């Protein structure tokens, strides 16, 4: 058995993981990063939009500062976030963007002079100042008061990922690709590494470490329709959750995007609707203007996704080999606009659909997009329940996003949180000693060998992993998607309990040798169904609508009862999660108020209670 040793083991080498690794390596600690794919293929690289940071360099960003960014983030979260964390994030973001520039990110820069921009299909003029020439510029994103999103053309995630991976290479960090952690090594109190399956050879390996950090991104792939890469399957969450002592924070907080293309759920930008595109049904008739007479297609993400789902439920969806969908129509925007302002959309239509959006309709449907849910950590990134275990990025519920995250805040979180949590890991590592018990390691490895052997031999049963997965995905799409209600969630839970039983009886059809995918899928299917049950159960209990969590039977945001965060534990041998709750934030800089979009009423919290919890400045 190959055994590796390091001060810090980072599971996942996307932007959050590598940023954490860089911080520790710069301080002289020995770091190993594990990644299922070569680091640069991480889902971080798919983020095109940009990273929010209040630099205030561009004309439309004038007057921006970290307080405005903080306020946007808290409002965006629908007061579900930890305000201490949102503050740490907003304050550090500008420094982090500059640091990235120093390391080599080719941020777009301010170009002085007049230029045009589009908003809602209308053309406006702006003028950039000479004194700001060459500083990092920003673009506009939804939900923000100022233009604050730093970007590199249409490939921000990719460019930052290249720079971060270069920095890892420069520092000599071992980034091992095609390695998948399948369980944590721990004694119930302290985490000391992971058992890992090599995806080149299929061999098991052991990685021992003083500190371990889970940075494996979101788990959108437990839904059938998701914009996530195929590697975003909850592997990291399952590692932590399986220990029985680590909770998933706010599992019900899942964000959906209105316009994923059918069949592959690749995202087409909201810019389509922003510039005047419309949504059509099976009769090629508009419907958003019926439900939202004022804003129509320009209503917020969650609102549009809700009405689209509603309209399909009314029987107005278009049937296809891949399920029902609706149409996005941008034909009337014309060739010039589509070839320039919506070039990406044009390319996606061409490459993946064989559709010319100048002449044809684009098949779209609401799609899972982001998990605010994650491995619950404190503000230092330390995971609840296990010493030596940390988490950062989308994998974590650090919790600056609460119940809805703003565009551009997720990509920024990867590096900003990575930097902050990396620093905290360094503090933790300094002077820290731990014991590696050989019996504990042997037991952890034996357990995994046993699990694999049983899957290969069919000792547990004869269920097919792909069928079980499909059942889970369908159940979540049906009962735990954009709309949630008592009956749907109860049915979803009932189905998933049956699915969990099947997941425990999976066996392989293939031999499972080498880089076998069926084995990888089988090893995590039970954990995935458990995550699904956490979402459904937490969503059932939360009898309110907050951010992306929408209850048809409880449409108000209830600050009296639900100004809190769900913690979902899965105890050893249990068949359902155990839910606990904690306060959403230790205190308030901004007292709960209206989000400013998305509608809905609010059942207000006790004013005196909130007042007592205001941070004193």
């Amino acid at each position: 058995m190959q055994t590796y040793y390091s001060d810090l083991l980072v599971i996942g080498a996307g932007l959050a993981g590598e940023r954490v690794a860089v911080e520790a390596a710069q301080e002289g600690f020995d770091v190993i990063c594990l990644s299922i794919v070569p680091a640069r293929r991480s889902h971080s690289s798919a983020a095109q939009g940009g990273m929010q940071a209040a630099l205030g360099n561009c004309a439309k960003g004038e007057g921006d500062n970290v307080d405005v960014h903080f306020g946007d983030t808290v409002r965006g979260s629908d007061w579900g976030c930890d305000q201490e964390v949102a503050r740490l994030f907003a304050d550090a973001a500008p420094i982090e963007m500059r640091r990235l520039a120093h390391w080599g990110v080719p941020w777009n820069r301010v170009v002085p002079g007049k230029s045009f921009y589009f908003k809602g299909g209308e053309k406006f003029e702006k003028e950039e100042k000479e004194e700001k020439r060459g500083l990092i510029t920003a673009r506009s994103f939804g939900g923000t008061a100022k233009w604050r999103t730093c970007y590199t053309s249409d490939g921000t995630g990719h460019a930052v990922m290249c720079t971060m991976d270069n920095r890892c290479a420069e520092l000599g960090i071992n980034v091992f690709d095609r390695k998948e952690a399948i369980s944590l090594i721990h004694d119930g109190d302290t985490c000391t590494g992971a058992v890992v399956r090599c995806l080149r050879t299929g061999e098991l390996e052991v990685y021992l470490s003083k500190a371990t950090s889970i940075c494996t991104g979101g788990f959108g792939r437990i839904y059938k329709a998701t914009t996530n890469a195929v590697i975003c399957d909850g592997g990291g969450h399952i590692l932590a959750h399986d220990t029985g002592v680590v909770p998933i924070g706010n599992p019900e907080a899942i964000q959906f995007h209105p316009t994923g293309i059918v069949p592959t759920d690749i995202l087409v930008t909201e810019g389509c609707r922003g510039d005047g595109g419309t949504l059509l049904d099976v009769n090629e008739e508009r419907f958003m203007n019926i439900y939202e007479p004022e804003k129509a297609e320009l209503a917020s993400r969650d609102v549009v996704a809700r009405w689209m789902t509603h309209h399909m439920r009314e029987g107005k969806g278009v049937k296809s080999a891949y399920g029902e969908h609706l149409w996005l129509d941008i034909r009337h925007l014309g060739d010039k606009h589509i070839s320039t302002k919506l070039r990406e959309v044009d390319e996606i239509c061409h490459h993946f659909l064989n559709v010319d959006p100048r002449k044809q309709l684009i098949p779209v449907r609401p799609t899972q997009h982001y998990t605010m849910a994650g491995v619950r950590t404190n503000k230092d990134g330390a995971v609840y329940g296990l010493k030596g275990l940390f988490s950062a990025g989308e994998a974590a519920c650090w919790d600056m996003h609460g119940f809805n995250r703003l565009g551009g805040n997720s990509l920024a979180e990867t590096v900003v949180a990575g930097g902050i949590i990396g620093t905290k890991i360094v503090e933790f590592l300094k002077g820290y000693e731990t014991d590696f018990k050989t019996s504990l390691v042997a037991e952890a490895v034996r357990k995994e060998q046993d699990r694999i052997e049983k899957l290969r031999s069919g000792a547990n049963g004869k269920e097919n992993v792909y069928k079980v997965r499909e059942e889970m995905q369908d159940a979540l799409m049906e009962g735990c998607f954009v709309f949630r209600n008592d009956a749907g969630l109860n049915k979803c839970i009932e189905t998933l309990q049956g699915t969990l039983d099947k997941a425990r009886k999976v066996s392989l059809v293939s031999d499972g040798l080498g880089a076998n995918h069926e084995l990888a899928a089988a090893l995590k299917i039970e954990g995935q169904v458990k995550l699904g049950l956490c979402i459904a159960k937490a969503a059932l209990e939360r009898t309110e609508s907050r951010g992306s969590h929408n209850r048809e039977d409880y449409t108000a945001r209830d600050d009296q009862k639900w100004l809190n965060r769900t913690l979902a534990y899965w105890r050893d041998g249990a068949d359902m999660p155990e839910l606990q709750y904690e306060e959403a934030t230790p205190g308030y800089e901004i007292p709960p108020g209206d989000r400013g979009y998305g509608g809905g009423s609010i059942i207000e919290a006790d004013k005196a209670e909130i007042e007592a919890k205001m941070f004193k400045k």
Partner: protein
Amino acid sequence: MSRQLEFDIFRYNPQDKGSVPHMQTFVLDETENMTLFIALNRLREEQDPGLIFDFCCRAGICGACAMVVNGKPRLACQTKTVDLPEQITLLPLPVYQLIGDLSVDTGSWFREMYQTTESWVHTNKTFDPGAIEERMENEVAEQIYELERCIECGCCVAACGTARLRDDFLGAASLNRVARFVVDPRDQRTDRDYFEIIGNDEGIFGCMGLLGCEDVCPKSLPLQNQLGFLRRKMGITAIKEIFRK
């Protein structure tokens, strides 16, 4: 619509002692808007769970799924079956080590390349968290970004005559990488420093100019222009070196 597609797929699992390299035929009904991503996943889930291939972003952004499709290296995710004949032959990329079936080890190849080309900004300046960022002209930033768009899919190397002949040839992706740092004003390396890395037959002088790299690049990177740019630069550096001696 509704064609029956015949997939001839290369099969070999080096981790299975009984495995012998061979071609295997699968049949699948075509559906609307089908890509090779959809087709291969269906084959694995419905017909042969042992089939090994790579996908990650499935959106043409990450470069994981490059393979040889009917003779040409390309990204499987953005290959629509409607653009292919009923007979589809899939082979793993050449040059790279085979992991199994259609999956090859591009990760190790590219990581070695980062080390060879020292793929990071070389500077003696230290970062000051209290200072505003150093200014850069937007044009320069865009020029750097254009070269950084490479997704490391490996198609260019797989389509390269020289790379097929000699293992040590750096290939278009590596030379493009060097060009990215040459145009970056933050990188303080000189032409002589770059000459040490690429001024030889393994580097800039090994290219036979067959243009295969640029033909197959899914991101349409100007690989041959960069090669020409570097070759001129390195040629001049070589002449200067002669006069220094």
